[in-house]
């Protein structure tokens, strides 16, 4: 870490390194005013230098050969994350499995970009002997590892972290997923079998249509009968199963007529084969089974895809490991803490119990809980709510209420519940399509019975098959999910993840839209609002030099602000001193500088003094996002009703709200989570847009919850729609796509209806025979597919422009 020498960029003057790029991340050097040099390589930051050296040491430098030009590398911030909790038994039990004396564990890896990352991930066994195998699923960013039974997980995670990735342990395949996987495989096999048999049966059928006669006709009939058996007794099982359950549950589904037709058709055909009657339906039946299976398989994939996108690493918050206070600093998992226990609440950790500080003082970020943007300085005796985050110093906390009584746990349970009970089956919810299906079913069964008594079963069967093929779910059943799939995939590409298509469809319909302030309309952290007073080189340098030494959130803001303004020298500071909750001071070239909070004012103001003389006042506030106003006005123009709910102070809320274009009566401030939820209840049906714990309840309360900002896993569970980037522009995109989706769905349903209106009578009256139907149906489906695809592409091209 340390060999890197810090060079101030003006030290390098306008040397070649000004234009040079970092040897690790390929980013320009001197951007943050500094360049790290070690040996002949140059880096933009210490982190990059570390990774580069590490890869070199491990003989993994080919990483740089593989790296695509311009592909980013993992973030390489220095601050070490502590993975020691991974070694804890509870974690191991919950998240890993032992097979044949080896431990299987899966990580979700943030920061997987290109082939180089893939290569690096799968080199682990060569770098760490305890890693027996490593296998990355590239697009899911899931790394599967086989480890020595007693290989400390933390070391693996740490190594990954050193490479610049963010490993998150995830539960390797719970029962549910396993089952899904199995289902998937079986379905695929069914599809393959059906495809194979249908294909060959078709070929034999062709020779029929080509007029083969006599012996060979029978030969082919028998052959196709043989080939049909797997379709009937293997590929068609799901139809039989489903219709059995449907009948038991007493509601209708397409499977019932399908089974009806299948049994009759195959029965009749087999009978005909034996009696040498020319009417054989194997070709129709088999192709029909194949098509339906195919369309259903496609549906399954669509759902999985949507799920996969949304189903990222699950939160570990409740599994945080803490160290108990006491002579033998025992490490325990936070769930096991009991009231009265005292433990170290570490910097950067999130609290998962309710408690109070017994020793130490630190800046606590409560936005998680209350949406309060300003970090609070808290000291002995003050109450800490679960979900709050320690920003600065380690402190000692005593437990009042254990994890299972904490709010965070309560939320987690609730939300987990909601989430698991989500209904993913797209299309099913489509009333019209079910209606048509029902109609088709009834008509066909009726017709069959008619023909049965009319003694023209063969004819009837033919028309029923035609009917079923022609109205096979492809058009309606596929049309809707197709659109949703397009919409969801395309949105996902832009970091907007929609859990289920139904939400997308409702989105277009619901009028009331409720916004959370902090982190949604605003950046969610204090920023430098204005700088009143001197801003000379001298001042900037002093502030920069002092604040880089401080860990206070404001300090970071100031440093960034100054770095943005370009090159800046670091002066060395004597007798630096940080007064927690107040500010910092120190000597630079014999002058005493102090940067301290103005304790009088209600706003957060910081005063810069040189030898006691006030040079400048810095006003901090959580300011709104650039596009906020535009968005709100746009939404209003779309005829939506917008509201602003926040736990923040009235004054601040009004200020921000108005500047975002809300009217006074649309703003509700100082609301606790419960109240928010109630409000949502009043406004129902409503769309809630927000982030943070405090919103989770509201998010799950609302018909549609849209969660912002990738940080908090709980949101993903709470919300129905989840945005990875915190740009508001995404929302506009989302709403317009939702709108598009609805209109397109309607259009397809329209097409479907018209099509069926024409097709059904034709089929019933025998105007279309099954083979024609089998040709027409895919054609129509393709047409719908194409039209949907193009209209959407148009939309997204537009969106990008």
């Amino acid at each position, binding site marked *: 870490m340390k060999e890197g020498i810090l060079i101030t960029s003006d030290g390098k003057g306008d040397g070649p390194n000004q234009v040079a790029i970092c040897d690790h991340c390929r980013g320009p050097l001197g951007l943050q005013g500094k360049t790290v040099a070690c040996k002949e390589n140059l880096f933009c930051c210490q982190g990059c230098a570390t990774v580069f050296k590490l890869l070199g*040491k*491990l*003989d993994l430098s080919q990483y740089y050969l593989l790296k695509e030009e311009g592909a980013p590398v993992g973030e390489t911030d220095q601050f070490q994350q502590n993975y020691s909790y991974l070694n804890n038994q509870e974690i191991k039990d919950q998240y890993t*499995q032992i*097979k*044949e004396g*080896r431990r*299987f564990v*899966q990580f979700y890896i943030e920061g997987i970009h290109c082939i180089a990352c893939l290569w690096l991930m799968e080199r682990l*066994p*060569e*770098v*760490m*002997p305890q*890693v*027996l*195998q490593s*296998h990355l699923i590239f697009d899911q960013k899931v790394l*599967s590892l*086989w480890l020595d039974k007693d290989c400390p997980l933390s070391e693996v995670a740490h190594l990954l972290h050193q490479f610049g990735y963010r490993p998150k342990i995830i539960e*390797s*395949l719970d029962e549910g997923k*396993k089952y899904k*996987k199995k289902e998937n495989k079986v379905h695929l096999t069914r599809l*393959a079998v059906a*495809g*194979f048999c249908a*294909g*060959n049966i078709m*070929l034999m059928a*062709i*020779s*029929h*249509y*080509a*007029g*083969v006669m006599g012996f*060979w006709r029978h030969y082919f009939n028998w052959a196709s009968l043989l080939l049909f058996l797997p379709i009937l007794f293997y590929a068609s099982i799901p139809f039989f199963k489903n219709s059995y359950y449907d009948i038991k549950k007493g509601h209708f589904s397409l499977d019932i007529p399908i089974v009806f037709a299948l049994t009759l058709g195959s029965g009749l055909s087999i009978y005909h084969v034996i009696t040498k009657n020319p009417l054989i339906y194997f070709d129709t039946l088999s192709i029909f089974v194949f098509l339906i299976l195919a369309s259903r398989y496609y549906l399954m994939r669509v759902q999985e895809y949507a799920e996969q996108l949304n189903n990222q690493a699950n939160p570990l918050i409740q599994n945080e490991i803490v160290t108990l206070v006491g002579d033998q600093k025992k490490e325990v998992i936070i769930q096991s803490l009991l009231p009265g226990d005292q433990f170290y609440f570490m910097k950067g950790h999130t609290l998962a119990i309710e408690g109070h500080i017994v020793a130490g003082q630190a800046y606590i970020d409560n936005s998680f809980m209350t949406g309060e943007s300003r970090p609070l300085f808290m000291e002995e005796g003050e109450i800490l709510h679960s979900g709050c985050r320690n920003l600065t110093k380690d402190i000692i906390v005593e437990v009042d209420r254990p994890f299972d009584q904490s709010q965070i746990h309560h939320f987690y349970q609730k939300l987990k519940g909601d989430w698991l009970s989500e209904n993913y089956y797209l299309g099913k919810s489509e009333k019209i399509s079910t209606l048509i299906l029902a109609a088709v079913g009834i008509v066909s069964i009726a017709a069959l019975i008619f023909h049965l008594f009319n003694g023209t079963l063969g004819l009837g069967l033919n028309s029923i098959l035609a009917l079923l093929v022609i109205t096979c779910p492809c058009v309606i059943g596929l049309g809707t999910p197709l659109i949703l799939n397009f919409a969801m995939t395309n949105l996902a590409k832009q970091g907007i993840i929609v859990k289920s298509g139904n939400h997308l469809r409702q989105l277009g319909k619901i009028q009331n839209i409720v916004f959370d302030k902090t982190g949604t309309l605003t950046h969610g952290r204090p920023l430098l609002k204005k700088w009143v007073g001197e801003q000379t080189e001298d001042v900037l340098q002093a502030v920069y030099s002092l604040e880089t030494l401080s860990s206070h959130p404001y300090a970071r803001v100031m440093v960034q602000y100054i770095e943005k303004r370009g090159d800046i020298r670091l002066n060395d500071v004597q007798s630096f001193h940080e007064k927690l909750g107040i500010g910092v001071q120190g000597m630079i070239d014999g002058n005493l500088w102090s940067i301290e909070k103005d304790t009088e004012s209600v706003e957060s103001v910081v005063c810069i003094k040189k030898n006691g003389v006030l040079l400048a006042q810095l006003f901090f506030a959580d300011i709104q996002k650039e596009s906020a106003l535009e968005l709100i006005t746009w939404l209003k123009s779309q005829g939506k009703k917008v509201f602003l709910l926040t736990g923040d102070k009235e004054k601040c809320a009004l200020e921000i709200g108005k500047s975002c274009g809300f009217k006074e009566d649309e703003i509700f401030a100082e609301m606790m989570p419960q109240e928010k939820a109630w409000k949502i209840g009043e406004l129902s049906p409503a769309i809630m847009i927000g982030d943070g714990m405090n919103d989770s309840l509201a998010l799950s309360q609302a018909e549609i919850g849209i969660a912002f900002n990738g940080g908090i896993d709980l949101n993903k569970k709470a919300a129905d729609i989840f945005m990875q980037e915190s740009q508001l522009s995404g929302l506009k995109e989302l709403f317009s796509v939702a709108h598009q989706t609805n209109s397109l769905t309607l259009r397809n349903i329209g097409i479907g209806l018209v099509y069926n209106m024409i097709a059904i009578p034709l089929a019933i009256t025998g105007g279309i025979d099954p083979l024609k139907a089998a040709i027409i149906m895919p054609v129509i489906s393709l047409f719908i597919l194409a039209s949907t695809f193009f209209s959407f592409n148009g939309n997204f091209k537009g969106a990008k422009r």
Partner: protein
Amino acid sequence: MSSPHNENLETFSYDDKIVKLFVYATLFWGFVAMLLGVTIAFQLADWKVNMGLEWMTFGRLRPLHTNAAIFAFAGNGIFAGTYYSLQRLCKARLFNDFLGRIHFWGWQLIILLGAVSLMLGFSTGKEYAELEWPFDIAIAAVWVIFGVNFFGTLKRRREKHIYVAIWFYIATILTVAVLHIVNSLALPVDLMKSYSVFAGAQDALIQWWYGHNAVAFFLTTPFLGLMYYFIPKAINRPVYSYRLSIIHFWSLVFIYIWAGPHHLLYTALPEWLQTLGMVFSVSLWAPSWGGMINGLLTLRGAWDRVRREPVLKFLASAVTFYGMATFEGPLLAIKSVNALGHFTDWIVGHVHSGTIGWNYFMIAGVLYYMVPKLWKTQIYSERLGNIQFWTGTIGLLLYIVSMWVAGITQGSMWQAIDPSTGNLLYPNFVETIVRIVPMYWVRAFGGVFVLFSFIIMIYNLMKTIVNAPKDVKEDVFQAPPLNFKSDGHDSGHRKLEGLPLIFSVLSVLAILVGSAIEILPSLMADDFIEKKEDVSPYTPLELLGRDIYIKEGCYVCHSQMVRPMVAEKLRYGKPSMAAESVYDHPFQWGSRRIGPDIARVGGKYPNMWHYKHMLDPRAVTPDSIMPEYPWLFKNKVNFKLIQKKMEVMTALGVPYSAEEIDKGYETAREQANEITEGLAEFGVSMDMQDKEIIALIAYLQRIGTDIGQEDEE
């Protein structure tokens, strides 16, 4: 390595020596095959190039050319690319280096001896499978060795996933084995002579089922495998859609095997079977193009690199030509198109756009990728590579275009009927040939270009190899073994470990047993042949003559299948019927009419005409491009063999009675004597009677005479 002695890792290296061997072989046989191609091209342009040499005639060199191109050139290329990619995809060394060597030397030996045997006129008379039965067995053996080596390697792989390329290789190995064995089923007469167990229409079906699938599974699937490996590698980006490639593979193998009958449109096959063949071939268009598009899209946005680098240039254009060929194929399988194109040079052009455009270019791309890697050096000259590419492409285009013109011209001339008189516009077949001879010159020079381009590659690659650093050490690799379930939730893994091997063995066995059960009884059973009372077996002498016909490869220029079309009735006579060829082991329907169809030649001309014709074709047909066959007038017929031959025929269901067989020798002699006496009147000496020409005349005069001409209006 930070931890070189990591006991969890296995250290291994690849057997690249075998790859190198196959690379050399590919270069050598590629040259031979193309040289032969050019030679026979010139023979067609000018008959004198046949040089009146027995072993140099078109009839013998053409089979040699096709076999060399397919099995020697493409074959070695496939083996080189497969062994290279397989080891890397499996992260495992070849199962057994020694087996690899057997595979290599075995294959080369077969080709070498095979080539000689074909020149000497040992031929089964089945297109693309002319090699006699001992070679067929040897080929099967070597193929099995290849299979064992392949699946052995697969079994030892350290990478769990079986990459799509490997799937294509597997399909190749299994299918080619089956096709080869079924098609080669024959009963030997002696060491170098055998009769196909199938006759006439049966044989035609089997032959083209094999013939087409040889194209499908020897010249397509393995090359698709190579495409899916080498294109991504060469351009260093993943294939456009891996999912599509998987679908491509399975949709292909599930139905591809059906292809074939479309080679027999308008023949004596039943209508429905032809339609089936047609529909099928047309439907194959989809998967083929799926693959092509996938290959091309992989190169999307990198066309500048394609322009610069020979490797990509060859691979890209190979895929393009694949697309072209797989579009043209189904087109030609449409009956109406086929009516025009079949038996013409169009087919020849189509085949070459595949073999040169797809196979040669793909191999070139693969070689240009592999050689520098194998020898750890840079390519000697990219510029030469580009020159080669353009020379080759120009040559190929000359070839294809000239064959289009030739084919369509000749095809339409055959069909042309004077509306006023209702007679043929070009009754004299030679006219239609003379008209396209200029195209033959163009084609020949196109061929020269292609050959030249290949020579450039040989030079370029050999230079590369010679300049390469000597004493290259093998690269050593490291990877964790797959010896335990490599992921938390599957139980199938070990199953698949041994699976490929077991499966291939089982399936091949199953198929062999199955086919044995199917075939053996039917071999003996008479019902395998639909009798027609007025069709009788060949006389002993005719039988001997027929073997000469096959030996000289007459079928490569003369079809024996009058198609049911007005023009053909006018030109040749009554359309052929399946029943006519029930005793033809093997069938001789042919696939190309460089000379006229001779299904009805029997009795058309006097014996003396044939006698003269064989001596000097131009003496009886001016402008004929047929070579002279002087040796037919020197070589003696081996009458000794006749009885054995008749016995074998009987075993195959030809109804020779016992005494017919006993008297076989005498009967043959008598007939020969008879014919010679007839010729003697024109001053032919009587000691001609034991020469091949007499037997051949006997056969020619017999063809198509069983079914009387009269009953047709």
